């Protein structure tokens, strides 16, 4: 085996240029695949974490019938005050942080004295329990101006909303929304704070009001449209937690985990993962074609050598193995260098990120819940499985063109030169 390895290494060195080109092809495939995989995973991870930390939490409890219509924000289906209290107590007993939220499509109206005109903006009103919300979401940590509901009748705006309507802390706005049973209500509120979270969707479209203020205006009677639940580890979410919560709250309410609540966004992200996988596969196929081509040339050039080896008593299989070993070595060298380079690229990238703010507007909804500075995830499996795949493909790419030469008769090999 060692002697075959020595011969294979020497043969690779024999055709330096060709070998280097093939190694570079493998290297590029591994480097690009690993970095792109890291970036896509990064996008997925950051988006998932932000969804959970700012929008939907790990598990959301709804009144039966609400979940199917959740995109319409129906005001006539919500969890009653009694049910909410009971569910909340049970969840507290099970030591699962939870908080009620009221959501409704609303209209934010401001008046500009300078321009003597009103401005309207559709927003999503999120009524929050100012104390309990901190245990489940990170909205309160994202304040960039003002405070978290220090006074009554305050509204906290997403930063992009404030920017768009030229609002600042202390300004008065009017919120037109829908209360329980579907009646319209208009509230005058003072801007108490502005948040700038990691989730651009929240910054662009959500406003927050203290649930206790909303309760009296909208006749909620202690009710809410949902209860958000976390198990204290916002970056980890699972169906198991939803099942556990369902058992705790009983059959009158529905517990849904974040993937169900955000199935459209998750589907987009998974679709992107799939299409990037296909693109990377093509990259590997191109590298594999290069290796096959190199092997075909090597086999053609070494026909007489192969014939001599067969005459010496080397079996067909051992000669095929020599070439496959060459292909495998090419794959190993390319994969190792590619993986190392990928690490060198991804470590600074994961710290500083790829800044797309110059290319894309922050108001563009790209589907992902992440800022325009893209950071890859250092996923150790990518550094293991992608190089292994590259090596396997290299071996296979070497095997098929060489396999045929193993079948030729020795005398034919001598004759064909």
């Amino acid at each position, binding site marked *: 085996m060692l*002697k*075959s390895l020595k*011969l294979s290494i*020497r*043969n690779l*060195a*024999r055709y330096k240029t060709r070998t280097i080109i093939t190694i570079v092809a493998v290297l590029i495939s591994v480097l690009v695949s690993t970095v792109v995989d890291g970036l896509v995973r990064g996008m997925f991870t950051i988006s998932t974490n932000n969804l959970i930390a700012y929008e939907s939490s790990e598990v959301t409890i709804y009144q039966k019938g609400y979940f199917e219509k959740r995109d319409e924000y129906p005001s006539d289906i919500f969890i009653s005050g009694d049910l909410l209290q009971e569910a909340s107590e049970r969840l507290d007993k099970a030591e699962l942080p939870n908080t009620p939220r009221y959501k409704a499509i609303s209209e934010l109206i401001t008046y500009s004295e300078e321009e003597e005109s009103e401005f309207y903006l559709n927003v999503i009103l999120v009524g929050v329990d100012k104390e309990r919300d901190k245990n489940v979401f990170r909205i309160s940590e994202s304040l960039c101006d003002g405070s978290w509901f220090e006074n009554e009748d305050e509204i906290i705006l997403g930063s992009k909303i404030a920017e768009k309507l030229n609002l600042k802390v202390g300004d008065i706005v009017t919120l037109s929304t829908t209360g329980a049973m579907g009646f319209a209500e208009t509230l005058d509120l003072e801007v108490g704070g502005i948040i700038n979270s990691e989730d651009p969707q929240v910054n662009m479209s959500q406003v927050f009001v203290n649930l206790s203020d909303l309760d009296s205006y909208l006749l909620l009677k202690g009710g809410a449209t949902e209860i958000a639940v976390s198990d204290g580890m916002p970056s980890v979410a699972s169906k198991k937690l939803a099942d556990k919560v369902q058992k705790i709250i009983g059959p009158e309410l529905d517990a849904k985990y974040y993937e169900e609540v955000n199935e459209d966004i998750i589907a987009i992200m998974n679709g992107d993962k799939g299409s990037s996988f296909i693109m990377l596969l093509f990259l590997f196929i191109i590298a594999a074609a290069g290796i096959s081509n190199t092997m075909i040339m090597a086999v053609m050039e070494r026909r*007489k*050598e192969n*014939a*001599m*080896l*067969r*005459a*010496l*008593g*080397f*079996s*067909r299989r*051992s000669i095929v193995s020599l070439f496959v070993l060459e292909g495998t070595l090419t794959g190993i060298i390319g994969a190792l260098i590619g993986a190392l380079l990928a690490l060198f690229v991804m470590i600074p990238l994961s710290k500083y990120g790829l800044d797309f703010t110059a290319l894309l507007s922050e108001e563009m909804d790209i589907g992902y819940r992440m800022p325009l500075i893209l950071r890859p995830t250092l996923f150790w499996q990518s550094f293991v499985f992608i190089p292994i795949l590259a090596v396997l493909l290299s071996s296979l790419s070497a095997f098929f063109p060489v396999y045929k030469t193993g079948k030729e*008769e*020795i*005398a034919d090999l*001598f004759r064909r030169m």
Partner: protein
Amino acid sequence: MVEIKSLVKTYKTGDEEVRAIDDISLNIKQGEIVAISGASGSGKTTLLNLIGTLDNITSGDIIINEHSIASMNEKEKTNYRKLNLGFIFQSYNLIPVLSALENVELAFQPLSKQELAEIGISDTKLAAKEALKAVGLEGYEERRPGQLSGGQQQRVSIARAIVRKPKILLADEPTANLDSKNSLLILALLSKLSHENKITVIYSSHDQEVLKNVERVIILKDGKLVEDKKC
């Protein structure tokens, strides 16, 4: 002892069938130095390849020391070659990335430990060195083929062919790429090795120098045996 019985080898070229060896029968004794001669296309290389199990017999048989070549499958032929035959080619066929010593040692690679023990080899490197010494190339072990002359390369090829102590050496035009001085050296070397180790040497050649240095000449024409004379 090589017994060739009613040997036939045909090839198909397009629609035509070519009879490269046409019903040849002859015997070669152990330790004989024989040349198979004839014009180009007479079938001499084909006959050599058939004896060397490098090609398939169409009909007839070759029996070498009671082993029937025609009845062997691919694996059996490979094993038979390993332990009984040595080859010397016109164009040396050395591996250019290996040194002279490594090229000779390569001959041992297909053999198992048991097979090495059967031929009395315990140290392959040492055996390879001794083979190079026997062909007059002591001190040239680390040189690669590109650093050797034609004659020296052919001697490495001979060392590789004899290192496994074969019973039969098959040499296809071994002097075709050499000048007259080196040709004579190679022929003298092969004769010496044959006499010392009782190896049968079968040349395929139309070189007059070769024909002068053998004990018997077998002449072929259009695949048929036309003359078999002792020298």
